[in-house]
């Protein structure tokens, strides 16, 4: 099919869909007029029922915790898939240690960059931890904090260079973190069943409203998510960075590290 026919086909479909979409949009409640009964109800009862301030976290970790469980394992699937697909040709075995290519020049970094990264790295990590632990009271949570933590490790790459990064971070630890975090979350679901409660029922003491340690089981689940996301995203960055290293051209200094 030539591109022109393809665009014509698309335009034809668009022409049919346009009035349909207009009818649907006209049937929707006007923007900003009202919110759904479900959300209203959750806003009304959850602060009292679960002692948490952040409704989104309450939904993610308690009311609709199963969705987050699925989401966490989706991330696990994607990262496992990425690892499988990227390591395929490199060989799965040789990821334990950095592949030091002979003749590969070590690019000198300016003192300023190294210093900036050494300062920014821990600060970013601190911020990530802050976001993680405040899941139930302020915006943020395990997922957002985990991504920030993973990018903090990325600053090691900028500051210390590739070899330093690979020395600091081992692939197996990341696997263990990722799998362990996901396992922790799944066990949070199963453990209450031992006491006769439902899957993922919040059986721990709930703590006080607006306190850092409020929400009971949500805190543990949040920790699991943070672990899994930190491990997963670091693994993702690691595998992608590995890909930028030219495999067989020792005479080519890696401009990618600039």
């Amino acid at each position, binding site marked *: 099919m030539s591109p022109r026919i393809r665009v014509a086909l698309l335009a034809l479909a668009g022409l049919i869909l346009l009035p349909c979409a207009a009818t649907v949009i006209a049937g929707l409640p006007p923007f900003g007029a009202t919110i759904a009964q479900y959300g209203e109800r*959750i806003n009304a009862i959850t602060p009292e029922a679960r002692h948490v301030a952040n409704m989104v976290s309450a939904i993610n970790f308690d009311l609709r915790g199963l969705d987050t469980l*699925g989401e966490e394992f989706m991330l696990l699937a994607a990262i496992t898939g990425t690892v499988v697909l990227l390591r395929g040709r490199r060989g799965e075995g040789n990821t334990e240690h950095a592949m030091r290519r002979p003749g590969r020049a070590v690019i000198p970094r300016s003192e300023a960059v190294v210093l900036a990264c050494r300062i920014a790295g821990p600060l970013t990590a601190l911020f990530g931890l802050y976001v993680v632990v405040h899941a139930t009271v302020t915006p943020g949570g395990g997922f957002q904090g985990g991504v920030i933590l993973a990018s903090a490790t990325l600053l090691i790459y900028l500051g210390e260079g590739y070899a330093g990064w690979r020395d600091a971070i081992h692939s197996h630890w990341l696997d263990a973190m990722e799998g362990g975090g996901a396992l922790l979350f799944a066990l949070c679901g199963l453990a209450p069943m031992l006491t006769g409660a439902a899957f993922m029922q919040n059986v721990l003491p709930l703590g006080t409203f607006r306190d850092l340690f409020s929400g009971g089981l949500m805190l543990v689940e949040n920790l699991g998510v943070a672990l899994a996301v930190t491990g997963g995203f670091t693994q993702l960055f690691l595998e992608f960075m590995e890909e930028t290293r030219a495999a067989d051209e020792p005479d080519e200094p890696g401009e990618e590290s600039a």
Partner: protein
Amino acid sequence: MTAFPAALLPLPVALPLVVCAALLATAHLLPGRLPDILATLAALGVAILCGTIALHAADGPLVYWFGGWEPRDGVHLGIGFSVDEASGWVAAFIGLLYALTFVFAWGFFDRTHGHFQILMLLFLAAMIGFCFTRDMFNLFVWFEVMSVAAFALTAYHLAESALAGAINFTVVNSLAGFLMLGGIGLIYAQTGTLDFEGIAAAVARGGRDPVVAGAFCLVAAALMIKGAIVPFQFWLADAHAVAPSPVSVIFSGSMVSLGLFGLAKVSAVVFGASGQVQHALPVLLIGLGGVTALLGGWMALLQRHLKRMLAFSTISHAGIMLTGIGALSAGGTGGMLVYVVGHGLVKGALFMIAGILLATQASIDEIALRGLGRGIWPAGIAMGLAGLLLCGLPLGVLDQGTRLVQGALAQQGHGIALAAGTIGAALTGAAVLRAAGRIFLGLGPDPGDEAGAPSEDEREKANRPLWLMLGPCCVLLALDIGLPADLIGHALPRAASAFLHRPAVEALAEGPAWLPWASLIAALAGAGYGLFRKTLPALVVRPVSVTQSAPTRALEVLHSGLIGDYAAWLAVGVALIAAVLAMV
């Protein structure tokens, strides 16, 4: 808190998830074959759990609320699982298929660190969750987990064609996910809940509503993309043909039919009270299903790449399942559910045979393999039997499903859909039988040209014993033939009615008894024509090849492998559904 059988409901999802997380965390410590053993046991465990649940669900659906968030004052606060008998048995079948696939894939991958098993177990958990859930967004989550695991598994071989096929698969199915989420957003905004029953009640109160129709259009398009219905079918042949054989078994045996299973559930349970949707469904599903059955069958006949042939055959059978749903009766849907199981068993066995040929003969090309299968004749018997079952040999589960679907269609006077389904099944059967005759009996001419021969890098690992690979395949076929038809026939009217949330019916009609035989004879004639074309008189051959060539060329141009084309067809398909919905 919860009664005994209902408390089992989260376990079939949680078990594979726990095993796969533990595998990932400790993969580098585990000895070689432990992941294989664990994965097989986990899948078996899931099958047993689902079977137990299905047995308990015979009296009425089991309901389970996660986190103990039971509905309060009519508002559904948490996520629920609701398992009727039919969903439970379909889930049990999926667990069993995985267990056999794990056995088939024993030693398939070197040095995997359990990655293959991890992805497959996730895939399994997502499918079970998809079968059990009663929450729209949860359905989406499992849909996406299923997709993501499938994307990674497709490209496992990292060959060029596998990668291109995986990209097409990923892009099209991601778009399906977005469409579905858009539909869920619309229906949630309109009804204020995500629970199936809650939405159904709100839809029943609302009357004719364009938003509900729009939501259905988007969700149905997404599920039809998963189910490879024309004009969304393009990704399937690209992906199934290139995925590793054990993965193809799962794709064709359960993933595609699960998309249609979801469609049947959503259109009956969630949108059952929307008159607009219910009026549009027969036209839409039976029309699209008939076209799909014919197109898939025709394309299958044209292929010489075995796995691609089987992939198109899956498209054809998906079309037949869709016509079953389109009958909108307990008979049609019940027949479709039985068909899902029977088709999964037979098609899984066929993909395993293709995998055996790839492993032992290092080729997947029908022509190149001519006569090479004689050394592994047991596989030939299995393939011949599977081909006969595929086109309608009146024996076993697949045949029972076919006859129920045909009965429902005949009852409602959908003669054209009936004919399309029969011809589609005959065409795919003819393709498989032709290939079996050529490979295992050495029949047919040897053209000797190399054009169209699959590339070398499609070889699969060879050093596995034949019995290990053939065993699961024979078990699948034995199950298809051996499952007691009386028990299924006895339980089905009740199970199908519960699945559709309708009052129970007494008995289900079956199609005319001569129809499977007609299909079988047509398939044998087609296979014979393919094999002995050279020896037939020109009087027969010429008109056939004249009528063949033009549509064949057109179809091959359509299946271009270009993702841009697929995106355009996707838009056309959504527009088609929207137009039908707007017109009723």
